[in-house]
């Protein structure tokens, strides 16, 4: 029997050491692993380096919680409202180191690590001040002599991924847009899968084309219904836009963030208690069912 990797959120997140590099928010505004992030805050796992393309307030929350030393990302803010105020405050106060990327350079960094190569070249970034940031090199390609930007590999210690369903083995189905999810899973040393639902392996094997994360890449599986709220999860629940707006209003100063975090992060002992606090109906009103897929032999 393959190993059962299911565990509790507290135990799984407890494996992450202070000083780790964590990639999260990999599907952009979709399926952000907020539940796992909030557990990091409750455990006070600090000195983190966060990696992601855009981060829709999860990075801002972890920065506000005082856990983050460095952000390697293309965009950190609040998509519904614009700014992430904790992020702004921390950068402007000199408390946070930021490595500026574009979305594509984050994707290439993770893809390079996933391929086991030290860097990948791109013609994006040329002419921008991002290309002049110290992590990049502008070089001449050895074949045609064109200018390229060399994007260094990033291999996170951990990738956090939220999915619709996973087997106890770690084999997981996810659907909807995926951003840089697969690249990060393959680049990371360890992977935490949080799932709306843990299902029998037979369910996963009934539709192997939907399986994009397999067990050898996965360290822990945590069943976390509503684990991506306030971000949406295809087929499960919609974006809670009001929550993003309320977060922006509540976190314009550090005290406001403290009060917000006391209520939504430190004041709950886990996702079940958190869920009871959300009163808005975010359920999918008009479910769309995919045409049946047939496999066989």
């Amino acid at each position: 029997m393959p190993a059962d990797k299911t565990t509790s959120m507290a135990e799984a997140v407890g494996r992450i050491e202070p000083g780790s590099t964590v990639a999260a928010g990999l599907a952009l505004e979709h399926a952000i692993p907020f539940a796992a992030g909030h557990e990091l805050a409750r455990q006070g796992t600090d000195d983190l380096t966060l990696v992601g393309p855009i981060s829709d307030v999860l990075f801002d929350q972890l920065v506000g919680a005082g856990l983050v030393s460095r952000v390697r990302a293309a965009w950190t803010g609040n998509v519904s409202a614009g700014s992430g105020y904790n992020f702004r405050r921390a950068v402007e106060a000199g408390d946070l180191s930021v490595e500026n990327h574009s979305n594509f350079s984050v994707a290439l960094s993770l893809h390079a690590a996933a391929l086991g190569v030290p860097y990948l070249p791109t013609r994006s970034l040329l002419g921008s001040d991002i290309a002049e940031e110290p992590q990049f090199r502008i070089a001449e390609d050895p074949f045609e002599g064109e200018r390229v930007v060399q994007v260094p590999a990033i291999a996170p210690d951990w990738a956090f991924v939220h999915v619709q369903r996973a087997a106890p083995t770690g084999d997981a189905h996810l659907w909807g847009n995926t951003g840089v999810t697969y690249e990060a899973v393959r680049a990371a040393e360890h992977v935490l899968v949080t799932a709306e639902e843990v299902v029998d392996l037979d369910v996963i094997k009934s539709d192997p084309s939907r399986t994009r994360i397999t067990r050898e890449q996965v360290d822990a599986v945590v069943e976390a219904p509503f684990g991506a709220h306030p971000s949406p999860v295809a087929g499960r629940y919609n974006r809670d836009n009001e929550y993003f707006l309320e977060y922006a209003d509540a976190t314009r100063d550090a005290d406001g963030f403290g009060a917000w975090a006391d209520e939504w992060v430190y004041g709950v002992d886990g996702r079940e208690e958190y869920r009871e606090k959300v009163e808005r109906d975010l359920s999918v009103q008009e479910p769309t069912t995919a045409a049946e897929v047939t496999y066989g032999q």
Partner: protein
Amino acid sequence: MASENGAGADGANGTNGADGADGYTAREMMVSAAAREIEDGDVAFVGMRLPLIAFQVAVSTHAPNAMSVFESGVVRDDPADGFLHTMCDLPNLDRAVSTTGMLDVMGRLARGDIDVGFLGGAEIDRYGNLNTTRVHAGDREIRLPGSGGACDIACMSDRTVILMAHEPRRFVERVEYVTSPGHGEGGDWRAEESVPGGGPSALVTSKATFGFDDGGELYLRTVHPGEDADAVAADFPWDLRTREDVTGDPVGETAEPTDEVLSLVRGFDPDGFWTAD
């Protein structure tokens, strides 16, 4: 506000008033003007907010064969059936053509397969370079969210269309940080720097539309109804060129959004979340 009176869009309120500008918001005007920058058959790289609505308008009117790709991996050929706060809202995933990953869609961009990309910015300069990374207010440095996919779109789309609120502080002689390169320092700068795409072709603000001349410099093309060309030009810290300087034709007036377009915009954004003033 007109935008909250969506039913009125079916009537003639765009044409029956003495002042047509009362019939729509500045942002609705921007969406209308931006939609016209999408040609039928284009593959458009669509960002958030107003461009997202502009694509939905374009594909519903003059560009039924346009496709949209989003950096999150969404590929759509029609308007979403529901309001979108973000490109990853479930209505944008539902009945998409494909929901794939970033390397897939950015790969198309890198290959040169994207006709038009949309951008915004906190600052823009004479050559359409954009800054969304950091600005100064007096002595204080203000950190902005950063690039997201904007630098990639700016570098590699065949052409880009920039949307921006018309605020003089946003127009600067030289942006403080080039998050998204435009025409650089003008002339053949993009070719010299090996930047692959074609660069900005238009800027749409809440008061006017602008083009870029052969040297890559911004010029005033049309002013929206009720706006004055000299006043618009005075908002720029340099001597802004105009269509008259570039083509010999005087600065025109931006076409008003049609009733059909207003009706569509108010259908896509019924509460005016993005398009109210």
